[in-house]
């Protein structure tokens, strides 16, 4: 770590550290005993306890399972749809209105419907996560194909490649960086959607752990789970950005998300 980077990181820490310290000191001075907020130190203790007794890890595993399965399905569907519509222009034009009408439906609006069909549990959560992550992957992969340099298709024509060869040798390599970007965004969405479904109705995972802690009027534990969710989200996004930089050098910095 170079010196300017270190000082930038330090300056970034000033505000949160000050806020947390102030909260701790003010809370202790006022002998805080609240059912709505908790001292930072109590949150840390609650987090440690929940990690130690395994309950938090169990909830994390539940959420991550739904996230990964949902992302896998959503990415597969979104990619297939994006490839199909990006490569076959007539199909794209025929489905334009239908997609314009379906896309604005908020994913969370499907929660009651999917529960009605599939009941509470993993299936519901995975379905909704898959539906929600399908859209960004579809939109990005479709526009990535439309953005492929037309000259490449002419080259493929001139060399007499078949359609499967074209996709394998020309389309996929040129859209791969953007597909990965779509996947990275989808993972972020997936965590948000999964937690939302859990908080709303589904008795699973980290979202449910928060609701249970809230119903038990335990603000320290509620906040501890929130911090944990934030940490997981941060970790995932860092990890995927690193993978992106290694796999597609020169791309990561150019992308604002």
């Amino acid at each position, binding site marked *: 770590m170079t010196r300017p980077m270190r000082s*930038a*990181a330090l*300056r*970034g*820490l*000033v*505000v*949160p550290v000050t806020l947390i310290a102030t909260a701790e000191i003010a809370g202790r001075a006022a002998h805080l005993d609240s*059912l*709505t*907020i908790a001292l930072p130190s109590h949150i840390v203790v609650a987090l440690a306890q929940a990690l130690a007794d395994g309950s938090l890890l169990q909830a994390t595993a539940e959420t991550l399972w739904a996230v990964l399965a949902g992302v896998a399905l959503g990415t597969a569907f979104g990619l297939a749809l994006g490839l199909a519509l990006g490569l076959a222009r007539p199909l794209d*034009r*025929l*489905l*334009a*209105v*239908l997609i*314009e*009408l*379906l896309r*604005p*439906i*908020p*994913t*969370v*609006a*499907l*929660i*009651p*419907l999917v*529960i*009605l*069909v599939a009941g509470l549990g993993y299936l519901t959560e995975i379905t909704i996560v898959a539906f929600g992550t399908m859209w960004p992957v579809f939109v990005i992969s479709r526009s990535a194909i439309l953005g492929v340099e037309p000259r490449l298709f002419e080259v493929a024509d001139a060399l007499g490649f078949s359609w499967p060869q074209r996709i394998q040798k020309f389309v996929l390599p040129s859209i791969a960086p953007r597909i990965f970007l779509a996947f990275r965004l989808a993972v*972020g969405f997936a*965590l*948000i959607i999964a*937690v*939302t479904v859990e*908080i*709303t*109705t589904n008795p699973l995972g*980290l*979202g449910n752990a*928060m*609701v249970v*802690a*809230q119903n038990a*009027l335990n*603000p320290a534990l*509620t*906040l501890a789970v*929130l911090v944990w*969710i*934030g940490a997981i*989200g*941060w970790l995932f*996004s860092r990890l995927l950005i690193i993978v992106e930089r290694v796999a597609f050098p020169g791309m990561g910095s150019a992308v*604002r998300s």
Partner: protein
Amino acid sequence: MRRVAWWLASLGVVALVIYAWHLLAAAAVISPVFLPSPQRVWTALSRGIQSGALTGYALQTVVHMFWGWFAASCAAILLGSIIGMSPTIQAYLQPSLEAMRPLPASATIPIFTLALGLNDGLVLTVIAFGAIWPTLLATIYGFESVDERHYEVAAALGMSKFDIVRKIALPSALPDILAGMRVSVTIALILTIVCEMIAGVGGLGQWILNAGRTFRADNLFAGILMLGLLGLISTNLIIGTERYMLRWKQA
């Protein structure tokens, strides 16, 4: 001409899909508890609109969504302009903001519920908290990336500080701000539905949750259609506003 033809064909595809839905429902392949026929959904929709029940819930959703989004946008533009124009403040705050952004806004619902209880105040707080991020970060970016040359022009013309913010920085950041506000609208609608499902403060979120719990698939579909319509209208409204305000961009 060609584009109109394609559009009509595409509309025909929608009609075909609805017809297939009708056939599927008529054949009762899928239980009508889950999949009502298009006719039943249409009846539920028109009944809900005529009686005013569905429109009433929709109006509540619009009110929640609008005020939450409006509060978020005002706060985001104010904070974002200050942070974006001051490299010092930005150096201290930006890392915290970047770290908080990926936090699922819905996960703050239990926290805010403990503090505020289940009411309209909770709904507005959660929506505003969740919808502030896109606009805030876009505003910061917009203000920090004002062309240096514009500032030199302002200095050469002897413009006042206030005028530089109002006439140079703000219009220059406007495309970014509006793009952020467009994303915020979508987030506001999502959080409105989630809050309405949890807090029981009316709105289409509560409507569809109740419809699902009472196995009224026709009402459920009508509610989802209304939500899709709200999403479509709100997004297009802001895209239209954006086009009008940024008309100087189209050469």
